[in-house]
């Protein structure tokens, strides 16, 4: 049977189409517009096209993500936590801790041996530890996001950011710029700050190997590097598929 997972995130909408819960036929990733409904439809159509199949070939559609209830063509919904857990287990069965960092949310999920969720923790209010933070800062430094992540790796470290909030962080960045701190150091400081916040959420569930990082920010090598340093253990990212697609995979795998 062919199933589809639609993950309507606060910034991006992802679709994954799977065959027999084993093989990925097609995917799509579009920016979430104001009209979720429309974006979901467009993303779904694009994934169908990539998979080279028709809508009627799809037996079951499951929605997840923050806008999961605005996918009228879905047969059912699944929560983000369960979808992320399932997807993570699919891409790396030895995973015990999932760290998901999307555009506005981050969470830590602890998995049992069989891939079911044992415990989870979500970011609290006023925690700016997510992707938008990176987006805003990259924009501020006038660097493309890919570049922003990369240069962090070449930094020495040592600069620190105190701000708790995206908005204030901007002015911290300004003051770092004023102090002539090089961009790579600023990038590193920002990544450290996010990793710090993400780690402090994930620590609530306890960190156990293997750790898999998913969600859009897992594309960011600077973040992964800071996170590794922060939690003191190796972290993995999915190797054959974009990390932000994992929750959509999990949705496609759901009953």
């Amino acid at each position, binding site marked *: 049977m062919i199933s589809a997972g639609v993950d309507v995130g606060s910034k991006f909408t992802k679709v994954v189409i799977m065959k027999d819960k084993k093989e990925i036929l097609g995917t799509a990733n579009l920016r979430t517009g*104001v009209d979720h409904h429309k974006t979901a439809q467009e993303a779904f159509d694009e994934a169908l096209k990539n998979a080279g199949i028709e809508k009627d070939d799809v037996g079951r559609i499951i929605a997840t993500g923050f806008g999961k209830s605005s996918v009228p063509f879905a047969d059912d919904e699944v929560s983000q936590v369960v979808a992320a857990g399932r997807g993570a287990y699919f891409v790396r069965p030895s995973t015990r801790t999932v760290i998901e960092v999307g555009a506005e949310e981050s969470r830590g999920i602890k998995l049992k041996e069989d891939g079911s969720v044992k415990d989870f923790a979500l970011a609290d209010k006023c925690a700016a530890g997510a992707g938008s933070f990176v987006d805003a800062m990259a924009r501020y430094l006038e660097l493309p996001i890919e570049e922003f992540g990369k240069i962090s790796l070449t930094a020495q470290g040592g600069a620190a950011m105190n701000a708790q909030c995206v908005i*204030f962080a901007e002015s911290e960045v300004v003051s770092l710029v*004023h102090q002539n701190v090089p961009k790579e150091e600023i990038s590193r400081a920002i990544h450290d700050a996010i990793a710090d916040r993400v780690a402090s959420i994930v620590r609530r569930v306890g960190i156990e190997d293997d750790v898999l990082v998913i969600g859009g920010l897992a594309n960011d090598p600077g973040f992964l590097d800071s996170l590794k340093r922060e939690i003191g253990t190796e972290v993995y990212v999915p190797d054959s598929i974009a990390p932000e697609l994992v929750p959509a995979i999990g949705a496609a795998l759901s009953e």
Partner: protein
Amino acid sequence: MAEAVEQKEYWRWPETIWVDESKNWHDAEVISCGIDLGSVSTQTVIMTDGELYAYSNLRTGSSSLDSTERALNAVLEKIGDMKREDIHYIVGTGYGRVSIPFANKTITEIACHGRGAVYIYGNTVRTILDMGGQDLKAIKVDSRGKVVNFLMNDKCAAGTGRGIEVMADLLSIPITEVGPLSLKVDEDPEPVSTTCVVFAKSEVLGLMRKGWPKEKILAAFFRAMASRVVELLERVGVEPDFAITGGISKNVGMVKRIEKMLGVKALEPKIDPQTAGAIGAALFGRALYIKSQKK
């Protein structure tokens, strides 16, 4: 990975450069300059013998040194024949004041807004609300514009100019229009529950999904912000006359709500109130120059 399409920049507010063509600066004894390097905007004011002569109001870029250079040069260019050496005294203020290398002295934006407000609104002003890019300040002054007491919000960026910019972007409405639009509702809805800019975003998206029109969302958002502002003001105690400075004073949606909640009307500005800080700085610059000459 799909391309992140860069949207139109709705948050961009209009920049200005202005010179009083009726005056000849060569006649002046003291030419002082105030530069207010804020987190969002940079104003440069040139005063001739304590009278406003020229100003610029531009966005702060990611490098403040460039911003101030740019801002000062922009005014000088517009004036035409004034050179930097012609200025007797430069006072820097605002968030980035310490990074204006050519300033003779720095003074806080709190003192400068107090002084500048008295210049703009007259010496009956007692309470000033400065609503800027990243913070709110409630300032009480005496008739000379000297600060008697002040409070600043710090913990949270909610209720600040940057927050409104984020909202404008999110709703795809130009920043100059969010205020008027928010007044198009008959009655304000319940305020959004989170005034936090970051989380208000998801709340706003939620409201959009519920089918709320944009003006209603803005009304709810501004109401929440205004009540935070009023809270700050009441903590210093509002004494008339009351005036608002800073960029958000141009947002009628905020101003009207604040006035309503306080039950006090704000004075009408004769001069762009976003320049209050730089005006104050330039006035202090004049005083400091005169003092230095006496010695």
